[in-house]
């Protein structure tokens, strides 16, 4: 039995694959930033509680976590949708192989979501409880991140799928995949870095609005950012070394782009680190966003190169129907306008109901 025999037949597309690739890349980038903030901030608050540093910074984070969960999940829906359009026949198969764990994510997220509300609403009610709860939230989010890593690694590794025949109960995690640990660590360190930077940005924003007691917060955030970024160079190198030989030889289709974005990403990350160490928060943020975007592209090319022996998105059959896309783009634009309108409505309305 060959891996190729197990790969399901994909369904037809309504518009060429490039549209979905663009939508996937953009929405995943948005999700990634939010997810990194959520996981990073959760870990940082826990470490700070555990280290006895339950300062105002933690309280500020606790108040923001529920929204961050809401938007992280919400912005995860779109890339998951577009991923399934392009790679659903890989992802559904890998999801079934680890189904029990995959479905567990939903339960974990519900508990975590409520956990963040409890954490926020009961923040002042006890230091020990805060530590335990923030630890539980961080652990739960780590678990979700790990399971996502497992699935996304499993979906590009059809050669391991035949394990299904000895375990069809959805409990395969493919822990022997060499990319798994470095990939997960790479994500976690990136989350710590982005989480730290988001704290720095928050205090930088306050500082620019005239708040004088922000340097401590900026320092805390940027130190986390810098430390995690330095560690991530190591994790990234490990991750590179674990990628399949066919990817690392840079001989496949798109390898030039892969290499270009990888180098650009590394350069941007180096810049962001330098700015971070200098506590130049906004410059670090711009550099980091550039690095993240490059790494999102690198990730896409890595997936394409890994799957190249079996599948190319350009092979997907297209039966064109553009009107649904046009309607979506119109509603998407209107949605952005509506959100802008609502935020302005709240920010500009100073009249308080009596």
């Amino acid at each position, binding site marked *: 039995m060959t891996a190729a025999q*197990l790969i*399901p037949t*994909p*369904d*037809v*597309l*309504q518009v060429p694959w490039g549209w979905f690739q663009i*939508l996937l890349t953009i929405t995943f980038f948005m999700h990634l930033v939010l997810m990194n903030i959520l996981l990073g901030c959760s870990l940082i608050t826990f470490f700070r509680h555990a280290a006895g540093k339950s300062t105002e910074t933690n309280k500020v984070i606790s108040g923001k976590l529920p*929204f961050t969960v*809401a*938007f992280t*999940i*919400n912005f995860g*829906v*779109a890339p998951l*949708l*577009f991923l*399934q*359009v392009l790679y*659903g*026949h890989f992802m*559904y*198969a890998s*999801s*079934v192989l680890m*189904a029990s764990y*995959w*479905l567990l994510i*939903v339960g974990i*997220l*519900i508990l975590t979501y*409520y956990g963040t*509300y409890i954490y926020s609403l009961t923040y002042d009610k006890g230091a020990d409880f805060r530590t335990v709860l923030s630890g539980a939230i961080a652990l739960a989010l780590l678990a979700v991140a790990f399971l996502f890593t497992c699935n996304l690694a499993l979906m590009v590794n059809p050669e391991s*799928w035949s394990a*299904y*025949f000895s375990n*069809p*109960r*959805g409990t395969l995690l493919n822990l022997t995949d060499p990319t798994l640990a470095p990939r997960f660590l790479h994500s976690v360190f990136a989350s710590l870095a982005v989480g730290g930077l988001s704290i720095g940005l928050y205090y930088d924003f306050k500082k620019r609005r005239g708040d004088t007691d922000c340097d401590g917060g900026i320092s805390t955030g940027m130190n986390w950012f810098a430390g995690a970024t330095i560690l991530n160079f190591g994790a990234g190198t490990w991750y590179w070394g674990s990628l399949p030989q066919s990817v690392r030889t840079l001989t496949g289709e798109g390898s030039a782009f892969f290499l270009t974005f990888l180098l650009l990403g590394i350069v941007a990350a180096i810049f962001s680190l330098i700015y971070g160490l200098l506590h130049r928060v906004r410059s670090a943020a711009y550099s980091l966003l550039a690095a993240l975007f490059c790494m999102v592209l690198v990730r896409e090319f890595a997936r394409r190169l890994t799957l190249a022996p079996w599948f190319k998105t350009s092979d997907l059959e297209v*039966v064109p*129907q553009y*009107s*649904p*896309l046009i*309607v*979506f783009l119109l*509603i*998407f634009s*209107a*949605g952005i306008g*509506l*959100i802008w309108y*609502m*935020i302005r*409505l*709240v920010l500009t*309305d100073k*009249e*308080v*109901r009596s």
Partner: protein
Amino acid sequence: MNYPIWLLDAFGGGTLIALIAVVHVYVAHFAVGGGLFLVLTELKGLREKSPAILEYTRKHARFFLLLTMVFGGLTGVGIWFTIALLSPAATSKLIHIFVFAWATEWVFFVGEIVALLLYYYSFNKISSRSHLILGWIYFACAWLSLFVINGVIDFMLTPGTWLHDNNFWTGFFNPTFWPALFFRTFLALMIAGLFGFLTSVNIKDPTLRHKMVRYCGLWLMAPLLLLLGSALWYKSALPPAQQQMIFSTSPELKPFLSGFVFLSPILFAGGLLIAALRPQAILRPVAWILLLLGFLYMGSFEFIREGGRRPFIIHDFLYSNSILKKDLPQVQERGVLQTARWIKHREITPENRMNAGKELTTLLCLPCHSEGGLLNDISLQARKYTPEGMLAFINSMGTANPYMPPFAGNREEAAILAEYLTTRMVPRFATVPADITPVTVSPLPFDPETSEYVLLAGPTLGTILSSEPEESGIDISYGPPTLRAQLIFRDASPSLIMDGVTVSYSLETGKGLLQGNFAQLDGYFEKTFTEIPSVSSPYQPFLIAELQAEVEGKIVAATKIKLGISTELGCRNCHGGSWRQDGKSGLSRSTAANILVIHDKRSNTNLSADFSKEITVVCSSCHGDFSRGTESSPGLLSLSAAMHGFHAGLLFNAEGNSCILCHSSSETGASHSFDGIHKQLDLSCSNCHGSLADHATGLLKKEGNTGQAEKLLSLLEDKTEVAIDEINPRSPWTMEPDCLTCHVDFQPPETDDGFNIWTENVEGLFHNRMGEAAVVLCSSCHGQPHSLYPANNRYGMAIGALQPLQYQDSPYPIAADKGCAVCHTIEMEDEMHHPGSLATFRNRE
């Protein structure tokens, strides 16, 4: 066929998706209706200048946010995760067909979250006008989410012309889109009222509490009336076949249909009740009870809607086992094991048959069935069947069992699957033939030199089936047996002796000795029993009667006859239960109970209730049975037409061997009721009676438009071997196959197909016919239908030919091989009984 199947055992069969989906759908509808509830309640507070109502609205908004945004939002994602795990092929189709609908819905989802968070956190911080705008925007986004999802969900139910044009918009605005949208909108408003109860009953001020509870009551009751109207619209928008599937074909949906119908007035009454109540201690539990009833209401609707798609996930496009309708013929031709991707045993060997069976089960059954779970437990179903019954069931899927997809495999795979399900998954049936212990029965002596008389006798029918009503509780037996006898005075010109003759019988039954005399009729003596004599124990499918003929008080002749009575009704092949007697025969009460449950479900009867009160259910009391002298109740089919007509679609077997699933003529059974010469010549039931479908067609056509005749007939359209239009109608018991169809002019047959030419009436039946001399009954010399001499009875050769052995020491028909001396005292040269009667018996072993 494209994807692996997640083995869930007890959590399969829809349990997982039902758990997640119904809960989510309830909360998701609250997220829509509750949005309008918030805005209008806030408006109410503003208009009435009531800070208390506004404060209630704020608190309700927090409850609303925590429930809908956290739990509702995530269980929505959970449904997506779940369907992708349980039906990846269908999920992939829906994702690819409606990707931009989902993407659009995501935009509304973002809008909902932003609007709701701003709405809640800006309470009392911005102007009322701006705050209300946020509320309206939230409701608009939530309702538009419903608008989009409704399009996809109802596409699955009624894809309409999308099936032909594959156009996004025709699929989205499908035939049930609008009624479903209205239905769900009203449902969402009702649910807003139900959740409103939960918060309003906790208001501390009794006056405000009463006011707000009544207000919530209006939210429940007013939309309920509109919902019922839209439900009728929804129903009428369904194609007729799906209406039939929901409202008549799927008995499993009846509890949900009843639930929906009964809960409507209960919820309305609940709204009135809670509006009238005042004590908080009573209001709180009532609010929770109403919420639970609402949950059941919603659940009933969702189960009904899902049922309407059967046997598809996307109606008329993708079967529930993830096989595209257009691909089915190809899969059936190649076989599942050769077509599916996630298969280990592609080639079947004697060693891996059951492993292949397990894979077939996983691929074809487990997408819908659990194994030992609460919903659709396949082991419960399989437990009822023997391998043969299961095979017949598998072959009937998609037609007589239209809520199941047609079996996707080939014949070998069907047999393997049936064997696996009934012998491995449910290790209940051992496919070993029944143990038959030979019985010694000797013919009575006959001295051809000194005997003056010959007594020829036997029952009019072959083996009679008895359900033993006293034991089983159900009377589906044939009419009681009739014995006939002819006394012949041996002579150069023998004569039939009637005057001054008494023919008596003595019959040892399972419940003692029966004795009596025959009545004298025109040309023969006859004894008709009033009930079927009990079979003996240990089980044997016959009783032996001894007959004596007396002339003027002197016994002049005696003989033995075999009276075939079998209790081996094959109902348990499909209806479960065990044999009642000796592990090989007898309809058990458990089997009977299962039959009646199905009858009650399908025909809206209440027979199970009678059965449980120890009242024997007599089938022929409603379904007329000529053999028992009963007439059908108005609008009901005759018993024979109902039994054959209903089961023909279910017991379809392409190899034409369905009869043995019910009748007692199986090669592996304990009765072997078909054991005459035709059996030994390898003819089967269908040579004379046609295949089950053909046989049933004749009976149903005779019924005209009575009852369900036309509907049952329509299920046989592609199953008959002879075109339906060409099959002649026939009445059961009186219009039977005619021997002379094959044996034209009593000659050796030129065909072995006796089907479709029926005797005109009872006079033409074999047991009523006589030879050309019009003296001797055909059956006097040839034996009984199905056991024509020389019958090879499995309990002993002599049992099948007692009189031939007695009178001529051979098992062949009386007077075969020019054995005229049985009656004639001189050599005969003329074939006076029928042409060929002086020929040598042809079919010797």
